[in-house]
């Protein structure tokens, strides 16, 4: 018997005006038929707005169907009588780690669920201990959740669900707001629950790498299930997934492109080992590729590189032995930056990477004077920014800063007014303000029909564009973006990064991209600075930096998947370029090696 069975499930969000008349109907789920067997590990994929979160809330009876039925473990979720029984059977973990922890101490939070359903005291204590041990958080039981990392908070949330002893656990994008380390820990905890405790898992995500190990995958779009099958069947059709703004793991992408170029590889490659084995077999079969098409592509790439480098001449920012301590002189003293010396040239496109707490955010906040160093000096165009005659407000317009989740700073009644806010603070006249806002919105590619809309009505990706425009409108010479793609789906991520690259190319300004995604950074930037324990550990081109992939791993970072593939291939005796960091470069290098 299946544990979850949805039949012709429809859900409509109905918006009413003040008199209760229907203003608009939005169909979030459209005839969803789906079955989950007990003990399975199921993934539901889809970009933002595809209806996957709405579906998750149905399984937990937080929403009930407008039409059709949903049966959870033999109970109809539309039946009020079963609401609490359904919620006990199918527990739910949400996206934002902060907004689902109710208590101020870890174990009290885990106890919240069992307390609600009236479990006796003795048993609650046992359940809390057991659940916390399952996710490896037992030693943090008396900690405050505020002192935990995102990944740890998510594991506490999972323990909170497990303490209710459910048969099934639904995770709604549990890793979207986490760094790579946190993601790994959370996924590991979920897989353990599935394998060792036989808990049915429904993982909702847009990270393709997380899906590879599941038993069965559903892909949703526009409220419908448009693809379903085993991961291998789903990832076979890379082109179709791309068309639906979904992504595939880098290895799969590389294998797909090599196949397109004629290399005899198996139809669907999911893991590194499969790709290596496939390539070895191809080599053994004596395959020779046709290289003419690919040579042209390589030439084009070199030209575009040449444009980027030409602008980089003068040093715009210099950091001279900069250190920063939080709460200096107390027992809580933390050295966030430790004697950092760097220079940034005009027109460079730089990526700063490092795990949470490596000092990367502290570093960039120094560059526009939001944080003042405890030691050392920063020069902007040769001037000491800590000099008492230096105009720090002017520096902030010269060095623009886009914070993480910048859409949280939107506040005006219209998008246009919000973008005007920066230029207005610069003291520009009305005409110039409007001109600047108009240009900035054009650069970020927000359609004109949204200019006069309230910023709160836009979708997630659009809000982010509007917020970025708010900084660009000040025409800074240097733009810093702190994790500009956090929380976006693959399409949104590619769009934003594409937009930033395009902007950099058009305006020739200096761009600093702070990220923990190596794959994003490798694709776009000219120079990478790796931060670790408050110091730059590596500084160079992506090729130079990723050559140290073993050291990066020790820092809790990982090089792009292709770097690993290339290094594995070298070990297998193939003459490929170890410095390839993007799928394109890897493809070129592998094809050459066959010749």
């Amino acid at each position, binding site marked *: 018997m299946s544990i979850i069975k949805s039949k012709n499930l429809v859900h409509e969000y109905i918006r009413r005006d003040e008199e209760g008349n229907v203003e608009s109907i939005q169909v979030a789920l459209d005839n969803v038929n789906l079955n989950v067997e007990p003990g399975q590990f199921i993934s539901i994929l889809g970009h933002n707005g595809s209806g996957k979160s709405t579906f998750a*809330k149905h399984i937990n009876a937080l929403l009930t169907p407008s039409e059709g039925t949903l049966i959870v473990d033999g109970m109809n979720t539309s039946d009020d009588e079963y609401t609490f029984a359904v919620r006990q059977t199918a527990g739910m973990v949400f996206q934002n780690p902060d907004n689902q922890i109710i208590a101020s101490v870890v174990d009290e939070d885990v106890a919240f669920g069992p307390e609600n359903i009236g479990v006796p*005291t003795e048993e609650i204590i046992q359940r809390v201990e057991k659940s916390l041990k399952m996710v490896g958080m037992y030693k943090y039981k008396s900690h405050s959740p505020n002192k935990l990392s995102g990944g740890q908070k998510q594991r506490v949330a999972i323990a909170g669900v497990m303490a209710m002893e459910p048969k099934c656990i639904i995770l709604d994008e549990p890793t979207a707001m986490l760094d790579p380390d946190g993601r790994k820990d959370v996924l590991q905890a979920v897989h353990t629950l599935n394998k060792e405790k036989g808990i049915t898992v429904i993982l909702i995500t847009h990270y393709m790498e997380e899906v590879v190990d599941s038993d069965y995958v559903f892909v949703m779009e526009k409220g419908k299930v448009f693809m379903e099958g085993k991961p291998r069947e789903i990832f076979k059709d890379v082109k179709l997934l791309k068309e639906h703004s979904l992504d595939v793991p880098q290895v799969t992408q590389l294998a797909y492109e090599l196949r397109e170029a004629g290399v005899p590889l198996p139809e669907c490659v999911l893991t590194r080992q499969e790709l290596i084995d496939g390539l070895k077999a191809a080599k053994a079969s004596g395959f020779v590729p046709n290289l003419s098409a690919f040579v042209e592509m390589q030439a084009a790439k070199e030209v575009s590189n040449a444009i980027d480098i030409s602008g980089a001449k003068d040093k715009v920012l210099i950091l001279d032995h900069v250190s920063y301590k939080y709460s200096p002189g107390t027992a809580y003293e933390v050295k966030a930056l430790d004697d950092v010396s760097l220079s940034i040239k005009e027109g460079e496109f730089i990526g700063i990477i490092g795990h949470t707490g490596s000092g990367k955010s502290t570093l960039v906040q120094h560059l*526009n004077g939001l944080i003042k160093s405890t030691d050392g000096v920063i020069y902007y165009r040769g001037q000491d920014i800590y000099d008492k005659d230096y105009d720090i407000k002017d520096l902030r317009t010269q060095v623009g800063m886009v914070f993480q989740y910048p859409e949280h700073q939107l506040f005006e009644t219209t998008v246009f007014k919000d973008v005007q806010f920066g230029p207005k603070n610069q003291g520009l006249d009305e005409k110039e303000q409007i001109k600047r806002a108009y240009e900035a919105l054009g650069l970020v590619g927000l359609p004109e029909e949204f200019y006069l809309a309230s910023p709160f009505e836009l979708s997630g990706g659009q809000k982010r564009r509007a917020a970025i425009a708010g900084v660009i409108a000040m025409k800074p010479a240097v733009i810093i973006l702190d994790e500009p793609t956090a929380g976006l789906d693959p399409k949104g991520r590619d769009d934003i990064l594409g937009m930033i690259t395009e902007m950099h190319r058009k305006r020739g300004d200096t761009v600093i991209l702070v990220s923990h995604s190596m794959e994003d950074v490798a694709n776009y930037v000219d120079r990478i600075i790796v931060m670790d324990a408050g110091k730059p550990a590596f500084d160079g081109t992506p090729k130079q930096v990723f050559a140290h992939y073993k050291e990066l791993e020790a820092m809790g970072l990982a090089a792009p998947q292709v770097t690993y593939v290339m290094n594995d291939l070298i070990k297998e005796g193939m003459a490929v370029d170890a410095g390839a960091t993007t799928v394109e470069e890897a493809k070129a290098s592998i094809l050459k090696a066959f010749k």
Partner: protein
Amino acid sequence: MLREITLGQYYPADSVLHSLDPRVKLFATLVFIITLFSANNVILFGFVLITLAGIIKMSHVPFSFMVKGLRSIVMLLIIAGLFNLFLTPGKELVSFWIFSISDVGLKNAVLMTSRMILLIIGTSIMTLTTTPNQLTDGLEKSLGFMKRFGVPVHEISMMMSIALRFIPILIEETDKIMKAQMARGADFESGGLIKKAKNMVPLLVPLFVSAFRRANDLSFAMEARCYNGGEGRTKMRPLKYSSLDQRAYICIFGFIIVFYAAKVIL
């Protein structure tokens, strides 16, 4: 800058005070406040001070951590102190220009400021050694009799514990939004009162939006975990008096008797 507020924070440690029943601590705090304000001479004041020092020692919370909580109210203390110092009539001690300090004023200023400081430290010992959940549990139980008069005691205590949980998060968020708007040239410092208030709009609107978003998320999370009001709820740590609590009550009553006996005698 906003992160340094320690008022209302919990400091995990292993001490006698940490293991006391929150109701005992609530009662003790109440007694402390009353005696603090009825201590009107140096000996009584010293008695309260010594008792407090003993309790601080027992709490295993570093004293510097408690004092940090005072930093946020230094301005308030100074203003209150100055008002008392200059505006209390009495025998003139010193005078210069339009100011004059009287003996009563001096005494009031010293008493007032030290009372305020002790009040903050005394109450913060309670919050530092009691988790917010215990605290609200204690309040819920102590005020349980008010349910009969239609006061939603459980709901109020739940709201309080959620508020305590989210205060640090919202403070951090304020800090972040402030920086983001400063990066767009916003100015939160200069200008008159009206201009300053107007300048707060770019900070307050996003903060409210975020608070509502969090509230919405949280309500879903609570419902998903079967929250359905106070009816039929059990507790992982139900409040039960132990022998330790009994001894604590005896100490508190002993303190009250000694204090008021001394007050009458002196």
